[in-house]
């Protein structure tokens, strides 16, 4: 019955918040797509119902009271009876909330334990999330992959359950990893290892945000979690494991890229570029977005970004490099080959 109620509510909610925009269905914490998010959604739903009932009762009584007991024109000047209290009813309205509270404690405790104490199964994928001021680094230590801003994980349907366990670290300030449809937040805090897990039941691109204020560009620290069916995911892994593409047609452009100071901050595997301050660019073209979700990855956007990142993401930690137009063309041409 509750299920049905829940379904009904979600349907209503979908009507209200309807629509899919662009590639993303609208995020909504009550439309979970992963076990932890599901459990959270259920207990949240319960909390909402309980609070709604309490609200209706109390607000109803209050409304009744202020209408019924308002002073009406022509009322006499007499004072109403002076009631000082009632032990009985006061005890009742202490005990009833206590009971409700007790229920809330129990169910919260269960879900807390269930989400936090989950142990990774043998086939779980392990990945590390590293928060940077204002972008995300994703590492798959067991696969030897380093990428940025777009976290690829395998689909975990009932036929092939394969959760992904994330280790969360930060190199600078505190961030928070939040993809509403997959799980709640877990903070990403320097000098502290946190973890969380997801097992998405549906393929797609799920969007999320950094949810802990982390400085100027906190607003533009978006997360994309790309859930792929197992074969697609494996193909992606294989591609990522390769060193950077060597395209002879851009050999000169490559030289140009390596000669400007991009290399101080960015890595392109297989070249002399080995900076670690900015995102790894080895497979830049495999990403849909640039600069943690701010721009879609088109040649024009890429050029604009490299020309003046500060115009696009003011305050971000990549400086405008003041490249000449020629240099810019070469760099973009080269980067465009990094599939």
């Amino acid at each position, binding site marked *: 019955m509750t299920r049905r109620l829940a379904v009904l509510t979600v349907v209503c909610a979908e009507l209200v918040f309807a629509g899919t925009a662009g590639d993303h269905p609208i995020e909504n914490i009550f439309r979970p797509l992963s076990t932890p998010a599901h459990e959270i959604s259920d207990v949240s739903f319960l909390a909402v119902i309980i609070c709604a009932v309490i609200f209706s009762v109390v607000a109803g009584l209050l409304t009744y009271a202020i209408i019924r007991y*308002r*002073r009406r024109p022509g009322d006499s000047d007499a004072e109403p009876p002076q009631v000082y209290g009632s032990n009985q009813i006061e005890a009742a309205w202490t005990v009833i909330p206590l009971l409700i509270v007790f229920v809330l404690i129990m169910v919260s405790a269960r879900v807390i334990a269930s989400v936090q104490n989950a142990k990774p199964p043998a086939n779980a994928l392990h990945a590390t999330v590293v928060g940077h001021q204002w972008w995300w680094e994703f590492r798959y230590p067991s696969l030897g992959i380093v990428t940025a801003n777009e976290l690829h994980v395998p689909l975990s349907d009932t036929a092939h359950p394969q959760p992904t366990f994330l280790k*969360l670290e930060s190199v600078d300030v505190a961030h928070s990893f939040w993809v509403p449809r997959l799980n709640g937040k877990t903070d990403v805090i320097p000098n502290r290892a946190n973890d969380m897990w997801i097992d998405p039941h549906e393929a797609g691109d799920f969007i999320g945000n950094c949810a802990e*204020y982390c400085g100027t560009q906190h607003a533009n620290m978006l997360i994309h979690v790309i859930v792929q069916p197992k074969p697609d995911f494996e193909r992606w892994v294989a591609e990522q494991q390769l060193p950077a593409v060597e395209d002879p047609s851009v050999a000169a452009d490559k030289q140009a890229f390596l000669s400007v100071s991009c290399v101080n901050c960015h890595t392109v595997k297989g070249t002399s570029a080995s900076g670690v301050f900015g995102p790894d660019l080895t497979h830049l073209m495999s990403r849909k977005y640039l600069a943690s979700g701010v721009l879609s990855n088109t040649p024009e956007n890429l050029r604009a970004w490299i020309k003046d990142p500060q115009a696009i993401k003011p305050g971000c930690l990549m400086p405008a490099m003041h490249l000449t137009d020629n240099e810019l063309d070469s760099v973009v041409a080269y980067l465009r080959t990094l599939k």
Partner: protein
Amino acid sequence: MATVDYPLEKSRRQREFSLSEALYSWVATVDHKRLGLMYMTSAIIFFLIAGVMAMVIRAQLIVPENHVVGPQTFNRLFTMHGTTMVFLVGMPIIAGMSNYLIPLMIGARDMAFPRLNAFGYWIFLFGGILLYFSYLGANGLFGAGSAPDVGWFAYAPLTERAFSRGTSTDYWILGILVSGIGSIVSAINVIATTLSMRCKGMKLSRMPLFVWVMVVDAWMVILALPPLTAGQVMLLFDRYLGANFFNTQAGGSAVLWQHFFWIFGHPEVYILIFPAFATVSEVVPVFSRKPIFGRQAMVGAVVAIGFISFGVWAHHMFAVGMAPISNIFFATASFLVAVPTGVKIFNWLATIWGGKIRFATPMLFCVAFIFQFLIAGLTGVMLAVTPFDWQLTDSYFVVAHFHYTLTGSFLFGVFAAIYYWFPKATGKMLSETIGKWHFWLLVIGFHLTFDPQHILGILGMPRRVYTYAPGRGWEPWNMISSIGAAIQAIAIICFAWNVIRALIKGERAGDDPWDAWTLEWTTTSPPPEYNYETDPEVRSSRPLWDLKHPEDPDWKYE
């Protein structure tokens, strides 16, 4: 100074007006009523400033990818908005209300430590000015200046030298630290006053609930503020002496700051709501014409809330990855606060029940307070459901929750207090007509602003974002929210107009315009410097009931 002015009939008012003397009389005053008004006035000015900041915030967010302000400015705006509202509006309003009313309500001539009282006011004011001076001076006098942009809870290590260069964060630390001294001083004063200065017969069991709530509030201030001060001192050491408290590179802990801040921060939010509780507990009975229902329970509930609130702080930190057992503990403690708070709500309701309600403006604000605080508390309980909070924390749902408590409850309570006691303090009545405009516009604006924010949170909008991309379903709700904010601004303008109008040509108030029951209504409006010509004596918790019903006084039954 101490010369006696004979003959006594010559009123001081009849002396010739001199600017320097007037100025001196305010600067050097140790009169609790003047200081109370100074606190309130400063707080209202800071409120207008912070309110304008909120307007800019809402203007920026009205449509996606808006360009009213840039990221830096926006971050400074919400930091200063939050900091100002909490430390330079909330705290001085507490001090102002307790200063003005407590001595009058307990039949005292002044606060226990009048000079300390003056010191408290001035150091609060200078602290506030210091914070705002950052707009000019934070990069050194040569730079453009910049206000702090670290958020009102200034999480480490964003506040460390490495991530927050310049001195804006130092201004945040010092401004709050200095004005915090003022809050502590005035809280000590409130405690000493209520314990030591009560007039004859004013037993604790007869003390007005307002005073009870404010004295519990003062206890919370003296216990809760030092952790913030301690944390700030450590942060200052980090920034100036290279200490490593919150320096994560050297083994420092970012989470420790969060603990220290919220050990202060959670009690602080109850500190902020208590003046509203206090006011509602006085206004509701008077306008329902009934005594407060379950007085002992009300006192007990306030004390219980005070105690429990020191054990719930980490519910602001459910997402930092605490052990399940800690999460359960703090969730439990947070739920438990709902019980005494519920008792308060129910007792107010029962006070109204069976009464004969006069809907004057103060009462309107109180009724709205009860409704809105109910919702605020219930969303608070949802947040305390740890798993729910994993989704909602740092989202707009939280913004909605705490504006329900702060705007919808605290501010409404303060407006109730202003409408209720303005006649006492100035001798003039505020206009009921404008008051009703103020009230209804504020209610409408408030709900338009903050109701949609719950939905925004559920749709995944994080707080403290200066911009957002279109297409995530957030546009309509942000639009409504911003429009609501504008309506609130109109409401506040009505309020300002009402006050100014009343001061200039308000109707005379008389001593007891509301037909009330507490001691302050037995003196003139405004009261003389010494409050009462002869020391009052009380016999019950409603001394004026006794006087108004001599054939049937309360004291026979208490």
